[in-house]
């Protein structure tokens, strides 16, 4: 072969190694496009699951227990976790807790809006569309109800926005509430009462109705709230789980009392960091206030301050409402495999949470305990509160509260507090009952906000740990309360959180911010 041919052949061969025709026509290899996605039921369900995904805590201060730390029930001395400044009423526009909640709720809303738009064009049956749309609306209502509780007026977005429409301003809270109720009504109309097997955990008719009751109650729509709660009771789908302590166990997940929860499974879908097992059982930052411990009644139904209570302040845990020991790791009680000795533990308050703590779990970073967001006991107490606030003193109120007390063998209202009580007396009873029933379930701080009760914002006291040091003889312990944190209500800030600065920096239409920020 002549050299010139060899050379030509070589250059030709080298050239064909390259020269790809479609070199510049690249489409995503490992991701999907919404334009071609919603083709069948299984794909629609994947998009629906994408909304549920967003109800998990997105940041440390959005875990449920942090809302107890913000309230008079608890305290977390680590300021980085974000709840401390909230509890001290030192929240500012750059605080983590407001921006985490804002982002978390708007993620649910944005995904629900995208889903509702896309499923309308999907090639699936109307039955599937109706059911899944109802779930998306439930989740959107759930997020908006949370937003108005903390922020008041918020932007109301119910469709997918183009970037040019994205610079939204705030909508009056009442208008947002109307949308919330409409979403819950739509959801309740289309959702089934229950699911079985691997659908358990999806939003139900009862969940939509219960959250409607809650939204109405939180927004002082007393009569409607009472009716909505009654509708849940009339549904007949739920009852109280017999054992208060094991109600929160992994073994009893999805029990008869659970109306809606966040579902977790080990490894692939465990609680986001920091899981409750890490936060409540391992980190010495989960404090229970002396004020909470003191608020549990004696088994005779009397508060410890009552002269006839039989309370001994040096044997303070004897004959107390069983919910105290079930919810709190008290000094000298079992703490996983050991005995809890406050002096050698690092929590400043001398007591830790027990409920949800997953004590003794093998891997604190792999906690799969479901977080109950709504349970049937709340329906009783919400209806009772709604009735009381609407001016009723109906005997049903007593019955509702008694049902919650009866599970833990606490005496009835009639037998201890008596009958013919005034609205103010009943209000105190139901508020107290909420506190001890729902301790460490993340509801107390929201209750404080909606009750707007300044007396609940006060300094934090705990037990003097040094006096609780000898494990051999708890009988010699001295219980003395000491102040561990100063909390002062800031009237200028009042009861709302600030719109996060991170969003205001981008979108000035959100100004003015809430008062005090």
């Amino acid at each position: 072969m002549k050299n010139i041919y060899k050379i030509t052949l070589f250059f030709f061969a080298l050239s064909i190694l390259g020269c790809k025709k479609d070199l510049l026509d690249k489409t995503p290899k490992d991701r999907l496009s919404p334009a071609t996605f919603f083709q069948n039921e299984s794909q629609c369900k994947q998009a629906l699951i994408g909304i549920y995904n967003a109800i998990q805590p997105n940041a440390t201060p959005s875990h449920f227990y942090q809302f107890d730390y913000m309230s008079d029930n608890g305290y977390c001395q680590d300021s980085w976790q974000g709840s401390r400044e909230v509890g001290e009423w030192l929240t500012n526009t750059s605080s983590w807790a407001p921006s985490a909640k804002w982002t978390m709720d708007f993620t649910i809303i944005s995904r629900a809006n995208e889903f509702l738009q896309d499923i309308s064009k999907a090639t699936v049956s109307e039955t599937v569309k109706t059911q899944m749309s109802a779930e998306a609306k439930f989740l959107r209502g759930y997020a908006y109800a949370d937003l108005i509780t903390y922020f008041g007026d918020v932007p109301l977005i119910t469709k997918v926005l183009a970037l040019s429409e994205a610079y939204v301003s705030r909508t009056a809270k009442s208008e947002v509430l109307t949308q919330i109720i409409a979403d819950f009504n739509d959801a309740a109309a289309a959702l089934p009462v229950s699911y079985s097997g691997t659908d358990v955990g999806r939003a139900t008719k009862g969940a939509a109705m219960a959250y409607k009751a809650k939204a109405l109650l939180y927004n002082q729509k007393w009569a409607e709230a009472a009716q909505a709660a009654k509708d849940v009771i009339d549904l007949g789908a739920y009852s109280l789980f017999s054992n208060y302590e094991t109600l929160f166990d992994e073994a009893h997940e999805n029990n008869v009392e659970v109306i809606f929860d966040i579902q977790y499974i080990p490894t692939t879908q465990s609680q986001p960091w920091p899981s409750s097992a890490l936060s409540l059982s391992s980190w010495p930052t989960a404090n229970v206030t002396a004020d909470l411990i003191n608020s549990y009644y004696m088994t005779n139904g009397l508060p410890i301050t009552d002269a006839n209570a039989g309370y001994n302040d040096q044997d303070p845990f004897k004959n107390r409402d069983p919910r105290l020991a079930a919810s709190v790791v008290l000094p000298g009680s079992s703490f996983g495999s050991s005995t809890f000795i406050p002096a050698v533990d690092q929590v400043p308050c001398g007591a830790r949470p027990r409920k949800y703590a997953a004590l003794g779990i093998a891997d604190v970073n792999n906690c799969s305990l479901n977080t109950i967001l709504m349970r049937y006991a709340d329906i009783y107490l919400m209806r009772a509160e709604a009735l009381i606030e609407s001016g009723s003193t109906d005997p049903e109120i007593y019955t509702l509260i008694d049902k919650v007390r009866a599970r833990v063998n606490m005496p009835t209202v009639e037998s201890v507090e008596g009958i013919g009580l005034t609205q103010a007396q009943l209000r105190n009873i139901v508020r107290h009952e909420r506190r001890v029933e729902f301790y460490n379930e993340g509801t107390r701080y929201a209750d404080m906000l909606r009750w707007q009760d300044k007396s609940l914002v006060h300094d934090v006291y705990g037990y003097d740990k040094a006096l609780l040091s000898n494990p051999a003889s708890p009988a010699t312990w001295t219980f003395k309360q000491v102040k561990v944190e100063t909390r002062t209500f800031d009237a200028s800030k009042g009861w709302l959180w600030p719109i996060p600065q991170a969003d205001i920096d981008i979108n000035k239409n959100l100004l003015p911010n809430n008062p005090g920020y």
Partner: protein
Amino acid sequence: MKRFLSIFLFLLPYMTLSAQQSKITGKVVSGTDPLPGVTVRIKHSSQGTVTDSKGQFTLTAAAGDTLVFNHISFLTREIVANGNGIMNVSLVSASQNVNEVVVVGYGTQKKANLTGAVGVVKMTDMESRPLTNPGQALQGTVAGVYALQSSGKPGDDGAVLDIRGVGTFGDNTPLVLIDGFPGNINDVNANDIQSISVLKDAASAAIYGNRAANGVILITTKKGVAGKLRVNYTVYYGSQNPTRLPHVLDAVDYTTLYNEASVNSGGTAKYADSVIAKYAAHNDLMYPDINYFKVYYGNANIQNQRLSISGGNDNVNYAFMLGRLNQDGILVGTSYKKTDFRSNIDAYFLKNKRLRFSGKLAGNLGVKNEPTDLWNAEWYATLAPIHPLRNAAGQWVSVNGERNYYGEIKEGSTALTKRYNFNGQVEAEYKIIDGLSAQVTYGYNVMNSKANAFHANVTLYNESGTTTNLVSNLNVTNETDVQTLLTSLLKYNKVLGKHEFNLLGGYSEEEFTYDWESAYRSGFVNNTQRVLNLGDPSTQTNNAGSYDLGLRSYFGRLNYVFDGKYLFEANIRRDGSSRFAKEHRWGTFPSFSAGWVISKENFMQNLTWIDLLKLRASWGRLGNQNINNYYNGSDILTSGQNYSLGGSLYSGVAITAMTNKDLTWETAQQLDFGVDMYLKKNFEITADYFDKRTKDLLLTQSIPLTMAQSAPYANAGEVQNKGIEAAITYRTTFASGFKLRATINASHMVNKIVRMDVAEQLTSPKAIKTGAAINSFYGYKMDGIYQISDFTWQNNSDQSIPYAQRDYTLKPDVVKVSNYTAQPGDIKYKDLNGDKVVDMNNDRTIIGNQFPKLTYGFNINMEYKGFDLSMFLQGVQGIQGYTYYEIATPFSGFANMGDWWLKRWTPDHPSNTLPRLTLDGARNNIHSSFYMENASYLRMKNIELGYSISPKILSRAGISSLRIYGNVQNAFTITKFKGFDPEQTVDQTRAQAFPQVRIMTMGASVNF
């Protein structure tokens, strides 16, 4: 076929035999001084010798042979032997070298004919520096190049390179071409480099268009030259230690200050006096006084070896290089071992070498070991001294019931990453007719990285008496990055009288694919067998991802020189990128440059002190598409948005990122004026002015949080980098034989966002704001400290009330801070809009710049009688650093505090610079100038003393040269910076960091 076989026998030293050999003796001088150490070689032969201390040599050669005289500091000379047996030669110092050839895009160019701004690094200065990464060679050596070594971590100590400032919000890394192939600067051994050219202005870089907007670095590796087989072996051993670690509090000071902060926050003292006494006693492991920096950081060894073999004959040249680096890290659990090889072979065929084949193969294996929780290890190195490390029983003690990273690393929580890189290129060039040649290059680079990140099973003892069991787990990740390149060039050179033409036309395409897979299991049988199958199968998860990218370009260049005086060059380039949607895919980028060699004009001939004076001007545009979003043509649903129902996992998808389908090329336009001068044979001066404007900036545009999607890229505005840069070199050889070379270079630059087409991003501590530099620090301006006199309190400010019991109210005329109830001792901020309230929306401003105003370097080399001494000083001025959290912020997490906090505000010592201590974040976490620091520094980057043993002694041992040396890198630093090291990562805002290292080495280099 036989002929092809013979090509592959290149390993055998090729000998040329000549008839009629005769002895030649001679003397080599420079002026009147004899020159020892000059290599004298017969061209195209392996025969050669070296001049002795009197500059004399003896060699056997035939009449008509060409003798090549070679010395590093002098111009190489070739002289034909005349057969009379005597040859006295005078060499000219290389400093007068106006004919120096510089590597430019797709070729070389006489330095005198350059019209663009090209900086050249002389690798001969670098040979014995313990460079673990070639980027370090660019530090302070080329004006206008800001090379910042962000860390001293083995395997990740590459420099961050900015050429003429940061002009983009995306990747600002310059394009690095290693022998023409785009690659990672870390994949070439610093010792294998022949030359580095930095193409700074648009006109020089234009030929590399689509990826050249940030400048281009051309690395040419060593090639074989015809002659005898040359063997070089270098070795060094050394020790590394941290350049600086902040001064922190001891246990007694820490606990005392903590108590003060606790009381200031409304709590009680946490540590009783008896407890503080236990810390002071230093006899209880549970009440320790540990400087955690000393636990996590220590001295570490480094050793490096390199062997190179090169040679060739008329038709085949070859070079083989083999290197091995073995570096331990100063952080516990870190080490890096790298083995690399490179081979360059050029073979010529046909008459007049009309056909050339070149093959280049290079590869390296880097084995990096580091803590699996690297960030956390660096973070825990800042721990407060009171956290026990181990208890009396030898158990590792958890910090706050959490972790003990030091203990975990010791038990085996390390990540081992093996990175394999292989690069192969074939190239053919054929001279079609005289002056016209065609060239095709095809190459590919494949990088595979296998990471094995293990968390050991460790039982930690908690201070509460309980134990925490950390379950072992393993994460295995494989990444494969494949890059292919095809370039075709047609080159034409023609000289017509005084006219000199160079034409280049070309086509290139590049394709990138990236894939990764990962797998996970927990619950391993033991801590030593880190293989997936030994984990609990019920815990396994896996994941994967994949990206690709295609680039296609057409380009052309015209270069015209008239009479060696008037220089002109034009480039045009058309580029397409698959990153953009179809309609926005293509961009066209032209550039022009011109030069005028004034010194060649007749009217300059009388000015004999001017050897060269050249003026240059250039203007050009370059495109940039280098953003980390690969696909802007379609909306994307992200998978992995999962949820479980009834105990089963369901896959979920969601739109998590917004896409901008109108996105197109970012354009960097640059104007450059420069002057080059050689004066009085000793001075070489280069100076440039440049104005670089990056338009249609690719920037992630912030979108409202209510959209709940990550931000899309937008063509967002314009950034300007304007500056001047200059370098002066002075070289001389004194009559005594003392040689001196000194270079000083400096560049001053102003970076400014000229215009924003999308909303400014006024976030703290870094913001994107029109009129300010990119990512300037942004926050409140500190305006002293609130003093007691700024407040009133109970009882008409009754002085007799103890300080702690006063109920302070701010006086009405004192500026207050919204969001924040000020107390005496808190930081006071400047009220910029004068409304007496400091708030986030009206009173934040630019408080610092993270790019230096001035960067400079000073290099001095001296040689005398076999000894050589070199020093390299490097500095930056007008730069700020932000140090936040950890040691900078009081009681941040579990961290210690800098000892400067001992001078904090107290009622008795009312400081006006350091606030009082508190525990809550509300006051400490406000971004302000309080956390700004002056990060200017002057650093003795390198100092080296060497000795070359006389060739006369060596020649008896068959050694042609031997040099031994000692070297200190990062010897000392002058700075006011309080954090770890002023030379820290751009965008770093936390105090946590991997310290820089000081390296002390001893080494030797020997040539056979």
